[in-house]
């Protein structure tokens, strides 16, 4: 049982914040980090989780297979116009951008961003637009700058943003860039991120005993 740092507890312990979607971005070292934060989630986890893991252009089932074995949630690579279903894990397919369009997915074959397709920025930007303050953005290990701008966008829309502690990341550049861009509410180690996700209750608000207001 990992105890969250006090500051995180404060941030998430207020009444009118409901998280309705979790978006995660990862690059080099991603699969292991994703496994670390998702493997403890119950199959009854109530929110949709959408993942962009930088990947090669040829479609391969290895990543899907790895995540299927790492997480209790049902997992799919979404198709265009597919509705977002609560409690499901979605993985961006190879060589497409994954966007959120209202409460469905949209796929795009627009050019790569920072040489990446799928791009984390593309997902995060659209999540910020579609979910505003009800989005939780998580940026993990990676050796490029994709995701920093998108995470900043989620923060600008009032959503909650978390970066993996660069000191614990296989590749620190991506979370470091986000921190430098002032896009991050909380910098956490992987077990702490896992704990945070677990604490999101069925109402999308973390279980809290006190009714303290959030400190922004």
């Amino acid at each position, binding site marked *: 049982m990992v105890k969250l740092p006090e500051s995180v507890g404060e941030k998430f312990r207020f009444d009118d914040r409901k998280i309705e979607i979790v978006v995660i971005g990862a690059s080099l070292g991603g699969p292991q980090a994703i496994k670390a934060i998702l493997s403890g989630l119950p199959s009854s986890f109530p929110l949709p989780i959408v993942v962009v893991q930088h990947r090669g252009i040829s479609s391969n089932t290895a990543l899907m297979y790895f995540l299927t074995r790492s997480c209790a949630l049902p997992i799919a690579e979404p*198709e*265009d*116009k*597919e*509705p977002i279903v609560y409690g499901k894990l979605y993985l961006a*397919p190879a060589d*497409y951008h994954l*966007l*959120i*369009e*209202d409460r*469905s997915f*949209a*796929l*795009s*074959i*627009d*050019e790569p961003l920072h040489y990446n397709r799928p791009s984390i920025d*593309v997902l995060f*930007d*659209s999540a*910020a*637009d*579609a979910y*505003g*303050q009800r989005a939780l953005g998580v940026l993990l290990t990676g050796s490029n700058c994709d995701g920093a701008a998108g995470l900043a966008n989620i923060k*600008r*829309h*009032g959503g909650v943003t978390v970066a993996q502690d660069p000191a614990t990341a296989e590749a620190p550049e991506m979370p470091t860039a986000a921190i430098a861009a002032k896009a991050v509410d909380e910098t956490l180690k992987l077990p702490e991120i896992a704990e945070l996700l677990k604490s999101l209750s069925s109402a999308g608000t973390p279980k809290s005993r006190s009714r303290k207001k959030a400190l922004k």
Partner: protein
Amino acid sequence: MELAAITKEKLDRIEVKLLLEAIHEAYGFDFRAYAYASIKRRIQRRMEAEGLTDIAALQDKVLRNPETLERLLLDLSVNWTAMFRDPGFFLTFRKKVVPTLRTYPFVRIWLAGCSTGEEVYSMAILLKEEGLYDKARVYATDFNEPSLRKAKDRIIPIDRMKTYSENYLRAGGKGSLSDYYNAKYDRARFDSSLMKNVTFAQHNLATDSSFNEFNVILCRNVTIYFNEDLHNRVHELLYASLVRLGTLGLGDKESIKFSPHEDCYEAIDEGHKLYRKIK
């Protein structure tokens, strides 16, 4: 009375909506039913390229400056395409659809949203190799005039041919892609014989109606740019334009599952997005 400030996402949405309304009102181009997330990205890229920092400023520039409009239109309407894109689709088409087409005296094929022609050349080559070309009539349509002009030219930059040749082979190509074109300097030009039974026409899936009944309709990676309403409208049109037992082919990440008339089709190959109209 104190008015609450609107959220950033609402402000952005209003700005995008106003820009698209302005373009439609001023110039008649209608992007209002395009999918919001992707069109917003394209608008923002154009905005940054013009050295502007908000969409309202882009709207202003577009209204006062036709060259800016042209650049924006290009950004909004051109969609990337390739020959034998998703080769597995064409391979599956050869294996599972062609045998049925052989039994018809005539085959009418509609390539809806043909863009700059790559899919047209691919289909023409496939039909030739399967011995179906002479009894086939291919209608290739797009709403974008410059794209249609390019498609009619049959010219592809030579540096793409290596990838296209690989795609061609993986799509079940029986010879060599170079059998079908002549190369000169940095360009390859496909044989005019490939276009003998092909008709190009301008057609807007958003506004125009059905113009014929077809045995095969391909509409691949077109509706990914449309919002749900427009997507549904297009599917109504495609359904109305397909003969019973005709074949509908969609893009790799599209599905009949999220469209009206879903229950009027059965999957020929769900993985490769080939469907048969059964009622």
